[in-house]
């Protein structure tokens, strides 16, 4: 996959990735997903997204080559690769902040390295390819447990842990009402995981009916289309005894619609780090003393949000890039025990050659697309 500019990608032959560090591995990709956050790159909204780079931070594959210091995985292992590039040694990694590694991103200190996610996230080529270089192979890649479906495994690279961490950061207490903005794959998974933390009621807000219908059954959840509301905040207040829900999860991020001014300044004019409409609604409708958990991706510049209300209402706002490696053991258990069924979200399986079509389908929500997976011809599984 080769990015050529906003909304233009194509398949190209690029040189084989090489071992550049003693802890590198080269992985032959067997599955890679297109993520909702890839659309920020695809639309040209993330600064320092260079022509010629390969996207893709959700991928699994078979280890083809390892550097001299790699001893935790071996050639032939089928591994799932967390989307974070993390060393496991810095003081942030040692405290489980694997999304905040300080030894993986030369271009920015505010975010750790992420595969295929612009030079602002480290300048690594990603997994929407046949082969990919995986740094810190002793730490990141995790051998896929025997018997696990590759379609489940690839969803453990980002979607499942990010949805889970969104609920975890919500500090959900038994009986809490949880509102999730966004019925994309991460929002769907956050709604599902909210129940695992003891939620008493889960509400999902979006504008796409087929996705709302899916999450209504999958999570399960109450679902509402914000296009049918005059005022989202007022609706949610009325639906929650006029006090607001206890926990809100922003699983939308920079591409939010629903407010013309925010869209104009955030998504089109790039005068903000994306359109914070969902975050705005969350802050204004959450209960006093409540928690807003953010996993939606925003750009590095500022955003117009009612920060005064955060103070006045005594809110706690939590957010982070997901610490995939920290969560994997628990989530693998959940998948193996049938508590979470990740592959149910996959609606499209496309050959890698159709990557441009995959982006078009996903970006424009065509053909009831929820999650597209790309399968290279050499995948073999």
């Amino acid at each position: 996959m080769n990015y050529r500019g906003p909304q233009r990608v194509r398949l190209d032959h690029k040189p084989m990735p090489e071992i550049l560090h003693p802890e590198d591995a080269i992985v032959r990709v067997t599955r890679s997903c297109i993520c909702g956050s890839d659309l920020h790159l695809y639309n040209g909204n993330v600064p320092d997204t260079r022509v010629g780079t390969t996207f893709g931070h959700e991928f699994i594959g078979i280890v083809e080559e390892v550097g001299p210091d790699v001893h935790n995985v071996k050639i032939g292992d089928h591994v799932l690769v967390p989307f974070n590039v993390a060393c496991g040694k810095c003081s942030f990694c040692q405290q489980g902040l694997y999304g905040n590694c300080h030894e993986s991103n030369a271009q920015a200190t505010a975010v750790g390295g992420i595969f295929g996610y612009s030079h602002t996230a480290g300048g690594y080529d990603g997994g929407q390819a046949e082969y990919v270089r995986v740094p810190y192979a002793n730490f990141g890649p995790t051998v896929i447990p025997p018997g696990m479906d590759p379609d489940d495994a690839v969803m453990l690279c980002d979607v499942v842990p990010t949805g889970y961490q969104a609920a975890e950061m919500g500090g959900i207490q038994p009986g809490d009402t949880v509102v999730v903005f966004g019925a994309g794959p991460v929002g769907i998974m956050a709604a599902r995981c909210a129940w695992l933390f003891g939620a008493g009621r889960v509400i999902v807000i979006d504008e796409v009916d087929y996705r709302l219908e899916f999450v209504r059954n999958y999570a399960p959840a109450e679902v509402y289309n914000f296009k049918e509301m005059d005022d989202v905040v007022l609706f949610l207040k009325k639906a929650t005894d006029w006090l607001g829900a206890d926990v809100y999860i922003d699983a939308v991020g920079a591409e939010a619609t629903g407010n013309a001014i925010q869209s104009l300044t955030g998504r089109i004019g790039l005068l903000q780090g994306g359109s914070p409409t969902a975050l705005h609604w969350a802050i204004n409708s959450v209960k006093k003393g409540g928690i807003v958990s953010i996993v939606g991706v925003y750009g590095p510049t500022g955003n117009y949000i009612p920060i005064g209300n955060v103070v006045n209402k005594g809110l706690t706002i939590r957010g982070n890039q997901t610490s995939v490696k920290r969560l994997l053991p628990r989530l693998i258990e959940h998948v193996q025990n049938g508590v979470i069924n990740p592959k149910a979200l996959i609606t499209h399986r496309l050959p890698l050659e159709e990557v441009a079509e995959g982006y078009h389908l996903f970006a424009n929500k065509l053909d009831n697309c929820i999650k597209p997976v790309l399968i290279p011809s050499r995948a073999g599984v």
Partner: protein
Amino acid sequence: METIDIQVVNAVRTQLPTREELAGKFTHIKGWGVDIDPENDPTYPMKNPRTDAEQLGYTWQRPAQQPQTVEVLQTNERPNLPAVFGTSSPPSGLSGAIRRYAFTFSESNIMHWIPLIVADRVNMVEGLMDDLLHGTVQNFTKEKGLTAPQEPNKTDLMTNVLIGTAVTIGVMLILRGRSRATQIE
């Protein structure tokens, strides 16, 4: 405007002070530490375990350093390259020059980000020119994925048609108005 030069002090600590050592250090502050509550940890579960190791500064055992074989732009908010880094698409051409300029500003400065967005657009044009030079035939239909099964969103389609019609009528009215104004003059 006077600038303030801050002397960088590198941390040389090797271990965290104990609670007793800290208490001894702050005996002059009445009430220091009387309400310390380790259970009140808003960083949990993201910091798990919480070790406070970052208070030791940049002192961890670093991984081996990846040799630098291509130009890598480095944020000025760190003193060195990280142990590993990406080597995809090194800066080049006009977009590269703009990016080098952007990296003279810190991440909190808008002059870091605006030039990077400008560079991305310049880079897109460079990509088109590069394709032409190498005889690569552009297939915009394919690159935009328009060969995918189309199932147009009827609401969006109608919205676009209405906006397009309104803009066209608006432009025509403005042009007619100007034309009449010119005739009156």
